[in-house]
C-alpha cells in the first residue's frame, strides 16, 4: 500500500536524521550541574602538593563539614606542621577507589564574623584524629594532644606531599572517629563539632537513593527541622531526628513540585553546643 510505504519512508528518514544527533550545549549548564553535585558531599582533591582524602561514612553518618568557602587548615599530627589553604575545597562523598593513603577530617568549624575556619587533621599513621582550633588551647583530649603547639591560622607552614611519607601498612582505625562530637569542648563557644552535611539534592522516586531527606545528628538534646518551599510556605516540620522528608507537603498531603527548597535547622547537643542554620535543598 502506497500510504504505508510513505509512512515507512518518512519514519525511517526522520529516525536517521534525529537519532544520535548532537547539538551545541548552551552556556552555563555545566556550571549549574557542577555546583549542584559539588556541594552535596565530601573529598579528594590535590592542593599545593597535599592530597586530601576522603571522609568515609561512619555508621551511615557522613562526618564532615560540607563544601564551602573559607580558610582551611591541615595539621600533621606528628610534626604539628600546619598548612593553610585559602581556596575552596570541594567536599565530596567518599570514594573506595582512593581510600588509601592519609585521611583528612574536617574536624571542627569555627566561625567569627564572616570567616569560617574548618580545621582538618591529617595524620601520617592514617589514624583519624580530631583537633581543636588554635584558640581552644587549654582543654585537651586524647586525640588532640598536639594541639597546644598548633600554629595560628596565619602561620603558614610548609606544604609537602604527604602521600609519599605515608606508611602503607598502617590501618585506618575507624573507632577513633566516633569521639569528636562528644569531645567538642563545652567551654569553647566558637568551636563546633563535626556536623554531618546532608545531601542537598534528593529524589523521592523510590529508587533507594536519596529518597528521603533527613539530618543525621547524634547526642542531641534538642532538634527542630523545618522545610519551606520557594514561596516561603512550610511543607515539613519535625522535632524528631528520625523523621525524614519524602517530598510530601505535610499540610496538603501532595507531592511537592521539583525545585529549590530551604530548610531551617535548630539543634542543641548534650555538650551545650547550639546551632541554627538555613540551607538550600533541591527536590528532583
Amino acid at each position, binding site marked *: 500500500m502506497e500510504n504505508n510505504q510513505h509512512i515507512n519512508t*518518512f519514519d525511517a*528518514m526522520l529516525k536517521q536524521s*534525529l537519532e544520535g544527533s548532537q547539538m551545541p550545549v*548552551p552556556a552555563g549548564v*555545566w556550571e549549574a*550541574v557542577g555546583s549542584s*553535585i559539588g556541594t552535596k558531599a565530601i573529598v579528594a582533591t590535590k592542593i599545593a602538593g597535599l592530597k586530601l582524602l576522603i571522609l568515609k561514612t561512619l555508621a551511615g553518618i557522613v562526618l564532615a563539614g560540607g563544601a564551602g568557602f573559607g580558610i582551611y587548615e591541615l595539621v600533621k599530627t606528628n610534626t604539628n606542621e600546619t598548612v593553610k589553604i585559602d581556596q575552596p575545597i570541594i567536599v565530596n562523598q567518599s570514594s573506595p577507589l582512593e581510600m588509601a593513603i592519609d585521611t583528612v577530617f574536617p574536624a571542627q568549624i569555627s566561625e567569627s564574623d564572616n570567616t569560617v575556619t574548618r580545621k582538618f587533621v591529617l595524620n601520617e599513621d592514617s589514624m583519624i584524629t580530631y583537633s581543636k582550633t588554635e584558640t581552644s588551647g587549654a582543654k585537651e583530649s586524647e586525640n588532640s594532644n598536639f594541639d597546644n603547639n598548633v600554629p595560628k591560622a596565619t602561620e603558614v607552614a610548609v606544604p609537602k606531599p604527604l602521600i609519599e611519607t605515608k606508611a602503607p601498612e598502617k590501618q585506618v582505625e575507624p573507632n577513633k572517629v566516633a569521639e569528636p562530637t562528644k569531645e567538642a569542648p563545652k567551654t569553647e563557644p566558637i568551636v563546633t563539632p563535626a556536623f554531618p552535611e546532608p545531601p542537598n539534592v534528593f529524589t523521592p522516586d523510590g529508587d533507594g537513593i536519596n529518597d528521603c531527606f533527613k539530618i543525621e545528628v547524634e547526642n542531641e538534646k534538642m532538634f527542630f527541622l523545618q522545610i519551606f518551599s520557594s514561596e516561603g510556605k512550610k511543607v515539613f516540620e519535625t522535632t524528631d531526628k528520625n523523621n525524614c522528608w519524602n517530598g510530601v507537603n505535610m499540610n496538603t498531603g501532595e507531592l511537592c513540585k521539583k525545585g529549590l527548597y530551604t530548610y531551617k535547622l535548630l539543634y542543641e547537643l548534650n555538650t551545650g553546643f547550639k546551632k541554627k542554620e538555613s540551607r538550600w535543598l533541591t527536590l528532583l
Partner: protein
Amino acid sequence: MSQPEERNILLIKGCLAQNPKSQKALFDTFAPTMYAICYRYAKNSDQAKDLLQEGFIKVYTKLGEFKFEGSFEGWLKRIFINHALEYIRKEIRQPDMVNVEDSHELSSTTIQFHELDTQKIMAQIQKLPTGYRTVINLFIIEGYSHKEIAEMLGISESTSKTQLHKGRHMLQKMLNNNF
C-alpha cells in the same frame, strides 16, 4: 568490549571517585547528544536546557546504580528520556488530546529528507503539540511500541496511535511548508 565503552568505564569510575576532571569529562562527552534528546522532547529551548541540567544532576546522583552492563550511553539516554517524560506526563493527560479527528490522508509529496538539516527538523518538532511530539519521539526515533508508550505516558494504546498518526501528518505538512 568496544573502546568507547572502556573509556566510559574509566570516566564512570572517576566520577564515582568524585574526581572533578572525570565529572567534567563525562559531561563534555555526552552533553551534546543528551541535549539533542532534551531538545526534541522539550517545547522550547529553555525547557530543553532545564531538562539537560536536571538530567545531569540525576545522572551523577544515580551513577552508582549503573551496573556496567550494556551501553552506558543507552543508560544515560533512558535517564534523560524518563526525566523529560516526568514533565510531559502532566501535560499529556489533557482531555482534549484524545479528541482527535481521523485523518488518513498523508501528504502526497515525499520529502527529501537527506537535504534537510537536523536542527531545522528539531525546530519543527518543538512546534508540535506536546502529545504529538512525545509519541513521535518515542515511537519513531526511540522505537518503543504503542503498548509501551501507553504505559509510559498513562494513556491508552489507541490514543498513542492516534497521536502518532496526527502528529506525523502535521510534521509532514510543516516540513513541506518549511523546506
